[in-house]
């Protein structure tokens, strides 16, 4: 049976990179059946780039009236792909360049892993590299305790608990059962929350021979010691969202451990006290913040 594969690309003010992303998606050897591009109300010349693809038979462009963040954009795009009848939804950011064969390897690796495990697996992600070929530190999937279970049988697959939204595919059933990413998170930790939500059905899988490049300015993971006035807004979302997740989806002890990690990171980076106070407030906000998943409609 042939799967209907939809790619979802969420973009915001990355006109210079978006064209290459779409070209690389469309050039996949195993062609995708449709591409949903969600423009989060970009203010640069994204519209001009997208105009070049407007008549492409596989591309649907959704321009949102306001920026809904990565979380809102992925939720919107995944819902659209689902409504159009996609069997598999493959999602990525607007600075993710899939390497040749990336989606084919994901599909094949996912199917082989399911076959070997004898169960359905809720997601499959690529290995994310930085521009120089190194591993992209921001996008490391977290392996399970038995991560090598498939490797020992010759598969290029590692079992994982979570991954980022940079080249990850979700089978339709996972979206039916678990819903969409939480729009309310806006940005940061939406991918962690979502993939961890899905592993209630079983582990995810990282397919080692599916690779993409994440075209970030610097190759550095999330580190609370890096907080400054310029990036503070992102960390505020991150702290609120992770506090919410740890408290409501895990337990208060997990939230306390996160608080400790946050404190140590801020202290280690000598982050100014006024910023630490703002993040502490966001932590408290996260305890009161408990958005619930929404589910897409079945249309086709």
């Amino acid at each position, binding site marked *: *049976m042939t799967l209907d594969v939809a790619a979802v690309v969420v973009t915001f003010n990355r006109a210079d990179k978006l064209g290459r992303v779409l070209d690389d998606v469309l050039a996949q050897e195993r062609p995708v059946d449709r591409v949903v591009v969600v423009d989060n109300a970009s203010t640069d010349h994204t519209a001009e780039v997208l105009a070049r693809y407007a008549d492409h038979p596989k591309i649907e462009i959704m321009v949102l009236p306001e920026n809904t963040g990565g979380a809102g954009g992925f939720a919107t795009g995944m819902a659209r792909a689902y409504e159009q*009848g996609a*069997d598999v939804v493959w999602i990525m950011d607007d600075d993710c360049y899939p390497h040749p064969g990336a989606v084919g390897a994901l599909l094949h690796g996912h199917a082989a892993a399911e076959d070997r495990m004898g169960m*359905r697996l809720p997601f499959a992600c690529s290995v994310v590299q930085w521009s120089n070929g190194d591993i992209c530190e921001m996008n490391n999937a977290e392996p399970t305790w038995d991560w090598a279970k498939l490797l020992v049988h010759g598969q290029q697959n590692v079992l994982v608990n979570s991954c980022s939204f940079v080249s990850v595919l979700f089978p*339709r*059933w996972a979206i*039916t*059962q678990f819903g969409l990413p939480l729009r309310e998170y806006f940005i940061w930790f939406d991918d962690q929350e979502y993939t961890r939500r899905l592993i209630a059905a079983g582990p995810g899988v990282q397919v080692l021979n599916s690779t993409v490049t994440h075209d970030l300015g610097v190759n550095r993971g999330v580190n609370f010691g890096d907080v400054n006035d310029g990036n503070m807004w992102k960390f505020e979302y991150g702290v609120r969202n992770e506090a919410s997740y740890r408290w409501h989806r895990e337990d208060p002890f997990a939230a306390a451990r996160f608080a400790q990690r946050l404190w140590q990171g801020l202290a280690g980076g000598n982050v100014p006290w006024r910023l630490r106070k703002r993040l502490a407030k966001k932590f408290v906000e996260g305890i009161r913040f408990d958005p619930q998943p929404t589910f897409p*409609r*079945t*249309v*086709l």
Partner: protein
Amino acid sequence: MNGLDLPEPHQGGPLFTITTEPRLFSPLDERERRLLAGALTYQALVHPGVDVRVTITRANGSTPPSLTDQATQRVEWPDHRQVVGTLGVLSTGQDTPPTGTKDVVVDLGGPVEQLSGLVRLPGRLNAVRNAVRARVPVAFDALRQRQTDRFENRRLSRPLPRIGAFERPEHTAGSAQPPAVLFGMHWLELGGAERWAAETVRMARDAGLQPIVVTDRDSAHPDVVRDVFDGALVIPLTHPMTSDDESTFLRALFDRYDIRGVHVHHCTWLYQRLPWIRAQFPGTRLVDSLHVLEWRTGGFVDIALRLSNVIDEHHVISPQLRDYLVDRQGLSRSKVTLATLADLTVTAVDQPHDAIGDDGPADRPLTVAFVGRFTQQKRPYLFLRLAQTLHRQLGDRVRFVMHGDGELGDEVRRDHARRGLQSVVEMRTPSTPVSTTLEEADLLVICSDNEGVTLTSFEADAHGVLVISSDVGSQASVVVEDLLVPRHPGPLLAQTTDLVVDLARDPDRLAALRAAQHDKVAAFAALPRARDWTRDLYERWNS
């Protein structure tokens, strides 16, 4: 073949012969003749080689037929029955003379018009429940929907048990008997599932297979007289039958026909016998057609899931059912086939008519229609309340047509009169073609609390009628998102009122939504068709 002019199957010849000429004290109509033929077939098959002496009775009032159940074995009957005839029959295919006689009493039931009424469960609690429902239907409905919410949540969070899988035994050699399909139906009455089931019966005959139809629900079976059942072997079962008779009956069917496949349409009795059929007749393919997910009771979908390990293929008519079976219940994608009924009532998705016409609704009243059976599921009482509210707000700028009848018919007509809606809501019975109402309508309101995909939505779109629907089943597949309203009665009435008021004032929006609806229906219609899937299936079965 007989003085009664009883129908015969179109392949394989009659399954019984007349041994004692009929004596009729009262003529039988065509429906009764066909019911009698089914009863005689059953009685002859479960008493092979026995001269079966049949007393035929007819009941007064709302008594369903008794054709195959244990009561047929008793030679006494209630006072409200009258004898209409006698005859004797013997199963064919016997080489030896009859080994004895057996007396049975077959009751053809009461008149059709008295049997299509509300099925009222016995008991004081149910009487109270019915009284409350009749007096305060909206409050009753609101509670019912809250209960449905709980059922829905529970159903989504629980896996369903399955019967054990077993290896399909070795295929038995083909038989020299006529090739056939055994169909299971709920009853032979109006309904979307029944309409599709009847169509498959026709397709089986067209494919050169003898259709054998069993039903398992008490009914007058008014549709048994339809042309589509000509030449089919129709046996309306009435329960309870003895377990000996059940297996004898089924085995006799398999002896007399080469049953290539069983196609179950909403028939609990046949579903529950599939494991036995799979064990005893492994060469027979087993498929079913599923229409609607019943959140409250599980319905046929749950039965199908429970028995899925012995069913070769599930046909579903809506994407919602596909997602439920595959995504939620974990059935293999290759085992579930989505094939829609989009073309069952309309031949093609044509360009919509310009229902509003050149003068537009500003120059004439906006016509809002309800088309469907008057049943609890369709909630006609909500439409009456909607009409009352809208008439208050829009006056003569809007008119209403209510088209249908059914078990709530009397209540609806009383409600219609009590609310003083005689001049506001025009009532039409099924004697008027649905197309007449749709030709006049601008908007169709579907208030149902559960559906698969309503065939009426396709008909409405083909007539250029915009559909407002409760967001149930797969209605989202054919109704524009803006026009989907909640299932709960309060929000349904409020949002539908707002929508109609807005559309009455904004013909441009109405036209734009109609175009969007047509695109959506066309996308749905582009999905695989049930007719194509079935044709291929039956051709494979007959090859």
